[in-house]
């Protein structure tokens, strides 16, 4: 099935460091949504991006939608242990089906 491709699948981060996860689509997207799932939990909506080149920030999280609306990124600064979990991106264009996401672990 189709979904937005996400890389990397796993991200091991030292506490305090920054990291970025990327979403890529072969087709232009009408929007992109990001979700976070804590271990054993369920996906929780973080944000939606709609406009070309849009950038939104939530505290230490920065979300960006590419100019061509085919890719997106999530950048987390000064990683904390509370950032542990799996981050998913998807789009209504793909009925919000998620790929494997990026699973983040943090080394204290």
């Amino acid at each position, binding site marked *: *099935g189709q*979904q937005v491709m996400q890389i990397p699948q796993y991200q091991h981060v030292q506490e305090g460091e920054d990291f970025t996860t990327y979403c890529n689509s072969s087709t232009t997207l009408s*929007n992109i*949504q990001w*979700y976070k799932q804590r271990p054993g*939990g*369920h*996906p*929780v*909506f*973080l*944000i*939606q991006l*709609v406009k070309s080149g849009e950038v939104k920030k939530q505290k230490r999280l920065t979300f960006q939608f590419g100019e061509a609306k085919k890719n997106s990124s999530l950048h987390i600064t000064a990683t904390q242990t509370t950032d542990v979990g799996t981050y*998913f991106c998807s789009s*209504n264009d*793909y*009925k*919000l*089906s*998620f*790929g*494997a996401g990026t699973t983040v672990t943090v080394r204290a």
Partner: protein
Amino acid sequence: EAGVTQFPSHSVIEKGQTVTLRCDPISGHDNLYWYRRVMGKEIKFLLHFVKESKQDESGMPNNRFLAERTGGTYSTLKVQPAELEDSGVYFCASSQEPGGSVGYTFGSGTRLTVV
């Protein structure tokens, strides 16, 4: 505001048996979705209700799966007869509008194990 409620949270059944999962969406949300996560990996779309009507059921794997939403409130997903490959976590989500600016609200899921 109560969230999306799913039950049971866990279900273990034998191959060939029937299981019915239930989802109560957020009150007033016309859009209800079912998803399935298999092997702890991808979360796949199953179907989408708008009120009591099936808007899109293209993700339903086969005719052993039957979803209903009588009266446009809660929804059930029945698997009959269950097979081993049906094991996974079944998520329900709801939204006031199709994928609006506040996204979908997911329930905690039902973990189904078929043995």
